[in-house]
């Protein structure tokens, strides 16, 4: 009896597992699925979890990656509105948003979907780029640079196409990956760049000379001004001194003779200062003593 119970339990477990395998399927976090009944898509499953279905051949489940997939188109040449040839690659992030629509359109084949996406991208790219000038792609003025706007226009066109055809695909983002020029144009650009560089070189040389001359001459002018101002100040200061001295002069007016005498005495002192040679005879005071000794003259 005990053994029978065990057998029954084991049997039941096996049956349950078998039934689960037949009737239940899992959809992972990163997946999206469509359930078909006799090949006809009937149910979209967008949330992860375990789901019920009738076993094959009644119902079938097709699971797809619902994560954002990277896709970029081929490098292709496009003409801008002002007849510049650009070679452009755009990349996109797209996802399968509606498995029920996606499955019958592409038979679940991602490469087939990407082929369709690529042709839509190419058409949109050509159409949008043809309506813009090169200056919309490259410009130092942020107001005139329409890089983002162009990307937005292409994205909008592709999105419009996707929703008209109801592909079950959602375009998450679209942006330029590469913008280059045809090989022959690169040579033209090189020669223009060389010319620009040479112009910069000569203007640098000219600017260097001119600017350093300016600096030097300005410095000279400034220095001369400073010295001249100082000279003018010096004259003024000396004048002040003379004016102050002039106030003293009346003192000497009391006896010009004495003033004159004192000046000569000073002149004598100054002229016979250091390192001079004096030749004198007995008439020179005080050596006149040699000649005329004072006597105890009876006259006095």
């Amino acid at each position, binding site marked *: 009896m005990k053994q029978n119970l065990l057998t029954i339990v084991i049997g039941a477990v096996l049956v349950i597992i078998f039934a689960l395998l037949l009737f239940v399927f899992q959809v992972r976090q990163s997946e999206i699925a469509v359930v078909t009944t006799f090949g006809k898509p009937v149910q979209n499953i967008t949330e992860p979890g375990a789901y019920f279905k009738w076993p094959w051949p009644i119902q079938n489940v097709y699971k797809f990656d619902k994560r954002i997939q990277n896709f970029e188109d081929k490098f292709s040449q496009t003409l801008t509105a002002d007849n510049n040839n650009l070679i452009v690659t755009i990349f996109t992030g797209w996802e399968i948003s509606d498995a029920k629509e996606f499955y019958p359109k592409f038979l679940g084949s991602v490469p087939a979907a990407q082929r369709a996406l690529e042709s839509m991208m190419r058409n949109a790219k050509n159409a949008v780029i043809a309506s813009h000038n090169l200056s919309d792609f490259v410009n130092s003025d942020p107001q005139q*640079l329409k890089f983002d706007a162009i990307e937005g226009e292409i994205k909008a066109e592709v999105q419009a196409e996707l929703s008209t055809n109801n592909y079950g695909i959602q375009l998450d983002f679209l942006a330029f990956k590469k913008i280059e020029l045809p090989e022959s144009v690169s040579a033209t650009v090189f020669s223009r760049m060389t010319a620009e560089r040479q112009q910069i070189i000569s203007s640098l040389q000219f600017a260097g000379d001119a600017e350093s001359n300016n600096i030097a001459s300005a410095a000279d002018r400034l220095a001369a001004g400073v010295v001249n101002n100082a000279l003018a*100040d010096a004259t003024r200061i000396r004048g002040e001194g003379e004016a102050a001295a002039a106030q003293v002069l009346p003192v000497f007016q009391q006896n010009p003779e004495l003033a004159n005498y004192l000046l000569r005495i000073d002149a004598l002192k100054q002229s016979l200062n250091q390192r001079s040679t004096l030749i004198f005879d007995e008439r020179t005071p005080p050596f006149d003593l040699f000649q005329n000794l004072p006597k105890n003259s009876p006259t006095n």
Partner: protein
Amino acid sequence: MSHDHEHHDHDAPETQDAGSQALAEALRSSFAIVKIVMALMVLAFFGSGFFTVGPQEKAVILRFGKPVGEGDKILLNAGLHWSLPYPIDEVVKIPITEQQIVSSTIGWYLTTPEAELSGEEMPAGPTLNPAIDGYVLTADRNILHARATLRYHIDDPMRYVFGFTNAQMTVQNALNNALLYTAASFNVDDILLNRVDEFREAVQLRVTDLAEQQQLGIVIEQCDVESRPPRQLQSVFDQVTDARVNRDKALIGAHSYENQITNSAGAQAVSIINRAEADRTNYVASITAEAKRFTDLLPGYETNRNLFAQMTLVQTMGQVLTNVQDKIYLPQRADGQPRELRLMLNREPPQPKNAASP
């Protein structure tokens, strides 16, 4: 019959007993083995649910495809964990704390890291082939090579792993686009020289914006950008650099001349003023002193002019004669005739003889 039967029954166990006993024995022991094996298998089944999460990663348990837990608890940290075995649970490991690095794939000419290191790059042709040589167009329509390396870490692992088939590639394309876009809005000299940092920051800003728009679930840590002129034009770009260096040199020279000349003019001015100030002070002081002396002497002078004059003269001569270096006394000749005197005066100090010659 019954006896027969009984007999038979009685007999058979005898002979069967040995066989069935052996069989039962065998069955029992093999059942025991099977039981042990089953127990081991059950253990193994549940034991297989153990897994470790390394320090550089997180893990998510998907139960029937759905993440287990709520909010932040979805992510399992480093350590030992247990999940129900497949196909009920599935463990997805996500590298997270480690820094991720991507490099741009556009904008640089065809080369390899090895060739770059050894300096043996392929010579540049006269043109750039868009199929193999990358470059970017600048705002002033110049061709420029630029490349970038982006360091980031994953901030939202659920989004990074479950939102994108290849998130790293999406980041890479965002970086490519940022390089392209930023170059298109900068002039060539700004990228190479004048606004190098601004350019780098603009690239990083654009990547950050794109990562946010596309909800990549990453945090940008650092973005390094390198740019250089096309190799075809390297020499002419170098000439510009030389010209710039020369200009700077000339300017530095001019500025140092400026400094020197203004400094010396300033010094000269100061000395002129100082001299004038000193002159003024001296002049006033000396004339005041003169005036004082005059006033002091005046009464004496007026008392006896002759005596005063003689005394002052003699006093002065005394002073003068002390100071005079050479004094030559030459008395009058007795006959009253003039004397002829020859003097050789040499005030120059004798030159040191050993100064110049070795």
